[in-house]
């Protein structure tokens, strides 16, 4: 016995690479995890089977045996006619749902002939300036046979109105429309910065939409509470989780305060997360998200309907992780991130294309991204059993740690008086900014290796990319100007005045927006009407 001990002592310590073993968010990891790391975990209380409260292991008992996730590729560029063709291509190649990317003028509630639209029309999404463009966008696509996700926030109510009216023309009532409206204005103030009006009137519009959709659109996800952009702006995994779920709490609180019964609208709330490069940390984040939300809805808001407790989410791989250098490496990054989303139990998934650090993706690049999901779904075998990493000491420990960090942020934000108040003070904005800077420093010190960027660099030739014709802008301007001449301007003007009147009062804004949309008011005109009443938000430029 003594001899054995002596022998052990004389063995040199095993060699360990000279690096800090932390996640991409800077979380320190132990060399190995053991049962003692998760000793306090109670299976029934903290995990439960898939489909059982608190849904840590997934919201469905059968998970992907019942149905694989929806492969939903975000697409949009150029004119409505061009994007209509891309939609038909995606639907024809096994894409299960549509997801519309709008251009910046549309996202910011500006018409294409506004001076700030210079160079932006049709560039990072499709230009939809009025109901007329929406009719072109969905031409030949029966709205009762697809689900559509629309990434639109400040002017969300206008684009929702256009979609409802296209359905109406096809003979498809709002009760039959299925899909998702992003309409998450809080994360715009926090991260993506596509806000128009100040936070409080912006929140009123969201509550109005949730109320209207809850009554008329039972198959519609009224909001997609998004961590994606928060993460892209530089947040850590735990910050993404914390700020997103705290945004969710804020929306629920505002709706409850406005007199809505929590179980009437909570089942149609949906979430949208980033799947970043740190594999296990991401899986833990998704699992923690479900547990926190279930407990929050049940305990904090006394929701009774299990559907109110279930966190359903869409995932997109991390755009910010893509490199302009050696773009084919991005296929591998995206595949790993997509796998993390699947192992984390996502309901739908967008995989980024290999050329997105350079430009909007080509059709070939989009096809590889979609095929990546199909390989995971049909070849890898990971969709056969639910939550395959449940019970992993590492993953359970990380799930607990990320949850604890998020709950600590909840306490701080509650103490500030909620998320709107925290946003007005710039709190989440500053936290994210700090994390972004820390990560950049870690990359520059080579504490974090980015293949092809700060290591394994080589000379390259330019990669072929998709070019958006500069003609699109001119054509879109001409289309809008022709529309302004063609429509019944007296009717449009009246509808815009009524929208302003509704905004000054307390009536729900959705009917007035529907009416103005029907009168072919443009996105810019409707947003200007609300700008006149609500004012415009400007953030303090801090860095």
């Amino acid at each position, binding site marked *: 016995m003594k001899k054995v001990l002596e022998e052990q002592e004389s063995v040199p310590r095993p060699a360990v690479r000279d690096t800090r073993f932390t996640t991409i968010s800077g979380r320190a990891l132990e060399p190995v995890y053991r049962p003692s790391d998760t000793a306090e975990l109670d299976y029934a209380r903290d995990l439960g089977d898939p489909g059982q409260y608190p849904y840590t292991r997934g919201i469905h008992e059968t998970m992907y045996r019942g149905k694989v996730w929806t492969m939903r590729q975000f697409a949009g560029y150029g004119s409505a006619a061009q994007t209509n063709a891309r939609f038909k291509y995606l639907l024809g190649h096994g894409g299960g749902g549509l997801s519309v990317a709008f251009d*910046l*003028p549309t*996202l*910011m509630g*500006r018409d294409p002939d506004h*001076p*700030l*639209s*210079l*160079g*932006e029309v049709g*560039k*990072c999404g499709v230009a939809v300036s009025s109901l007329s463009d929406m009719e072109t966008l969905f031409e030949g696509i029966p709205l009762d046979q697809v689900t559509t996700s629309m990434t639109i926030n400040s002017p969300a109510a206008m684009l929702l109105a256009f979609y409802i009216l296209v359905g109406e023309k096809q003979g498809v009532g709002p009760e039959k429309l299925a899909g998702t409206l992003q309409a998450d204005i809080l994360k*715009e103030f926090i991260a*993506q*910065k*596509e*806000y128009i009006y100040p936070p409080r009137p912006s929140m009123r519009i969201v509550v109005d939409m949730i109320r209207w959709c809850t009554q008329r659109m039972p198959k519609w996800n009224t909001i997609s509470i998004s961590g994606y952009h928060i993460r*892209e*702006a*530089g947040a850590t995994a735990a910050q993404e989780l914390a700020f997103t779920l705290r945004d969710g709490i804020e929306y629920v609180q505002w709706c409850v305060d406005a007199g809505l019964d929590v179980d009437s609208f909570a089942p149609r709330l949906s979430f949208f997360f980033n799947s970043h490069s740190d594999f296990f940390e991401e899986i833990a984040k998704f699992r923690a998200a479900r547990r926190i939300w279930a407990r929050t809805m049940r305990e904090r808001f006394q929701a009774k309907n299990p559907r109110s407790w279930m966190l359903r989410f869409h995932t997109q791989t991390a755009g*910010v992780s*893509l*490199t*302009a*250098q050696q773009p084919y490496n991005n296929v591998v990054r995206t595949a790993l991130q997509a796998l993390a989303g699947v192992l984390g139990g996502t309901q739908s998934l967008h995989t980024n294309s290999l050329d997105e*650090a*350079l*430009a*909007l993706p080509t059709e070939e690049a989009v096809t590889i991204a979609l095929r990546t999901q199909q390989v995971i779904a049909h070849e890898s075998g990971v969709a056969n059993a639910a939550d395959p990493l449940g019970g992993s000491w590492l993953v359970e420990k990380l799930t607990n740690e990320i949850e604890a960090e998020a709950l600590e942020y909840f306490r701080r934000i509650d103490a500030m008086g909620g998320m709107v108040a925290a946003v007005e003070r710039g709190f989440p904005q500053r936290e994210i*900014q700090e994390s*972004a*800077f820390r990560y*950049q420093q870690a*990359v*520059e010190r080579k504490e974090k290796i*980015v293949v*092809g*960027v*700060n290591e394994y660099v080589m000379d390259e030739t*330019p*990669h072929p*990319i998709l070019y*958006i014709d*500069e003609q699109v802008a001119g054509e879109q301007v001409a289309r809008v100007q022709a529309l302004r001449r063609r429509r019944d301007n007296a009717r449009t003007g009246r509808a815009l005045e009524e929208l302003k009147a509704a905004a000054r009062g307390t009536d729900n804004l959705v009917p007035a927006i529907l009416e103005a949309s029907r009168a072919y008011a443009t996105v810019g005109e409707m947003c200007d009407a609300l700008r006149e009443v609500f004012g415009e938000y*400007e*953030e*303090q*430029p*801090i*860095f």
Partner: protein
Amino acid sequence: MTETAARRIRVVIAKPGLDGHDRGAKVIARALRDAGMEVIYTGLRQSPEQIVAAAAQEDADVIGLSILSGAHLPICRRVVELLRERGMDSVRLFVGGIIPSQDIPELKQLGVTEVFVPGASTQDVVRVIEKGVAVGA
């Protein structure tokens, strides 16, 4: 001469157009400040006119534009035009963001001193700006 040498490089970092993705602009602004430059960040959604006016008012040596939306060519064309009109030819223009490599020659021909794409290190940006200003002086 001594005065010029002692003067800190003055940089206006701007987000033109409608794009709100400001992670890069803020990281760069902070890195340039940490490197000893005087940095003015304009905030979001600045027109070329506002950016050039800010550069004139701040007596800037450098304008750094952060553009991720694909609007880089028309925006840079307009900024260069305005700089010429105002006789601010000594102001160096730098651009960072999602810029296809195919567009870089045209941007440089317009008068952009350097273009930084994703993956550029802040240390490289600092070095290139210092060099660009020294050449221009």
